[in-house]
């Protein structure tokens, strides 16, 4: 009952708040969207390859009903339209010989801004930007040594950019490689012979889903990530250091990240998962927007993630991945699930969903009961449960008569 009232209140406030408060997405954020998409896909691949085996499925798209929710701020004014993001991902690995797993993975995302909302065919106006990124690759895992090797390519294609955006190569090809040994992984992205990014992760937390502990002090070990980004010819290289920490029974997590060499706070988040399988989550986030205006520099927001639906308001994930969209409720229809040895869990979760094993137990019990009821040789069986087959009985009686 309480949940129903909560959802109703959420729905009403969403309807009321949507048209009134919405801030425009920026041309700059759209121009650098390709790099953000590529980095995000590699980060998700890092999460999924923590076990190196099993499978993963993800599909989703943002839904904003009104043109005023994510308008575009250009030099000419504010254009009504939609920031959009469609994504799908899949990973599957099979055991080829004992302890040797070979897998294939593909991540696809199409996003940008367009004057109309659409599924397949955008309007392509003078101010649209439609871009897609695909990451694919093969993985090999030696599960006895807890070692994963993966590598592949990344394609970044620009379908359409309006004249207000800076010039961009319409087709870029990157390569990537991922190496994981135990709790440590290194990931690199390259353009020809030039490195673009390097991510070093130390996921020290013990996760039951990958054969670790269910509880205890080992589950409270921190997860560190150090990501280096190539600043290009004119810019300086930058580093982002992130720290994820289990705060309470793998249900409450704290996250904080800092940027170097500027030594500045980047973002922080408090995430609560009612179940450690991370299918449902609640998060409160804070992000530095780098607009340099005192208190307005920090963006406070939150999101509710309900397996099939995510609703966010000023959340740092949406701000960073949907071209600085803020000031409005953003819905995302989605479905995302990872699996390992038949157990299901959300991406990055330390434990699997509990319902799977209960179901199996119940099924087995039913089968046992059925077997007892239909045992024919039991003398105690009641008369109503005998099998009748009239044809056979007729034949038997005839042959018996012949013998006499």
């Amino acid at each position, binding site marked *: 009952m309480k949940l129903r009232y909560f959802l109703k209140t959420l729905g009403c406030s969403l309807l009321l708040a949507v048209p009134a408060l919405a801030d425009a997405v920026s041309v700059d954020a759209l121009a650098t969207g390709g790099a953000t998409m590529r980095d995000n896909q590699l980060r998700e691949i890092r999460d999924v390859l923590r076990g190196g085996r099993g499978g993963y499925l993800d*599909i989703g*798209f943002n*839904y904003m*009903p009104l*043109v005023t929710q994510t*308008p*575009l701020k250009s*030099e*000419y*004014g*504010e*254009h*009504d*339209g939609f920031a959009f993001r469609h994504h799908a991902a899949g990973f599957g690995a099979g055991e080829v010989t004992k302890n040797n797993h070979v897998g294939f993975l593909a991540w696809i995302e199409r996003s940008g801004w*367009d*004057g*109309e*909302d*659409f*599924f397949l065919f955008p*309007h392509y*106006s*003078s*101010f649209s930007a439609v871009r897609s990124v695909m990451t694919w690759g093969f993985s090999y895992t030696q599960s006895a040594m807890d070692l994963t090797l993966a590598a592949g390519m990344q394609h970044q294609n620009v379908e359409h950019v309006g004249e207000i955006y800076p010039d961009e190569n319409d087709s870029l090809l990157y390569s990537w490689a991922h190496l994981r040994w135990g709790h440590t992984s290194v990931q690199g992205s390259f353009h020809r012979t030039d490195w673009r990014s390097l991510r070093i992760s130390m996921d020290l937390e013990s996760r039951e889903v990958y054969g670790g502990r269910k509880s205890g002090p080992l589950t409270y070990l921190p997860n560190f990530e150090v990501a280096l980004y190539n600043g290009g010819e004119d810019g300086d290289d930058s580093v982002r250091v992130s720290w994820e920490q289990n705060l309470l029974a793998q249900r409450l997590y704290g996250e904080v990240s800092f940027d170097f060499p500027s030594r500045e706070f980047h973002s922080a988040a408090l995430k609560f998962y009612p179940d450690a399988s991370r299918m449902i989550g609640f998060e409160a986030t804070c992000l530095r927007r780098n607009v340099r205006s005192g208190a307005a520099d920090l963006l406070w927001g939150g999101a509710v993630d309900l397996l*099939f639906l995510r609703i966010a308001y000023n959340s740092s994930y949406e701000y960073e991945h949907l071209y600085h969209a803020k000031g409005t409720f953003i819905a995302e*229809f989605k*479905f995302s699930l990872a699996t390992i040895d038949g157990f299901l869990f959300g991406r990055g979760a330390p434990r699997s969903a509990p319902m799977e094993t209960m179901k199996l137990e119940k099924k087995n019990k039913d089968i046992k009961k059925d077997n007892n009821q239909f045992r024919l040789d039991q003398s105690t069986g009641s008369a109503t449960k005998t099998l009748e087959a009239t044809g056979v009985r007729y034949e038997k009686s005839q042959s018996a008569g012949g013998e006499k």
Partner: protein
Amino acid sequence: MIFLKRHASRMLGILLLSCSALCLSGCLTHWFVEAESRLQVENATKDCSIVAVEVVSLDGSTSKSWIDETLLPGERSRVEEGDWVGEFHLRIKYTNSTDASGEVLEDLQTFELDGGSLYLVIRGNAESLEYKFK
């Protein structure tokens, strides 16, 4: 195949959900949302000629021509299509004469354009032009 059979109902559910999601977005909004503006301007002044209508950038440094036609008093322009839906500065260039001669004056106005067919009637005199969408 066994997997498919066992999870048929669940998969059907997911399929139905994604179908209903499909209906929510995309083409449906095109029934009532337009991504283009089709502008026609009528010069309803008595003693001014409209020389051009332009969209000007917020800092005033660049502009894009929209109606590139001289409209004498009482004339109407052709319908011009543009990707202008939202809030923009429009610059109306006009002269204080009935034959488009003399000094070109400018008037800068902010308009909220909702898209679709827009019929802009310009009234008033050289001191102050009045704008009304019909």
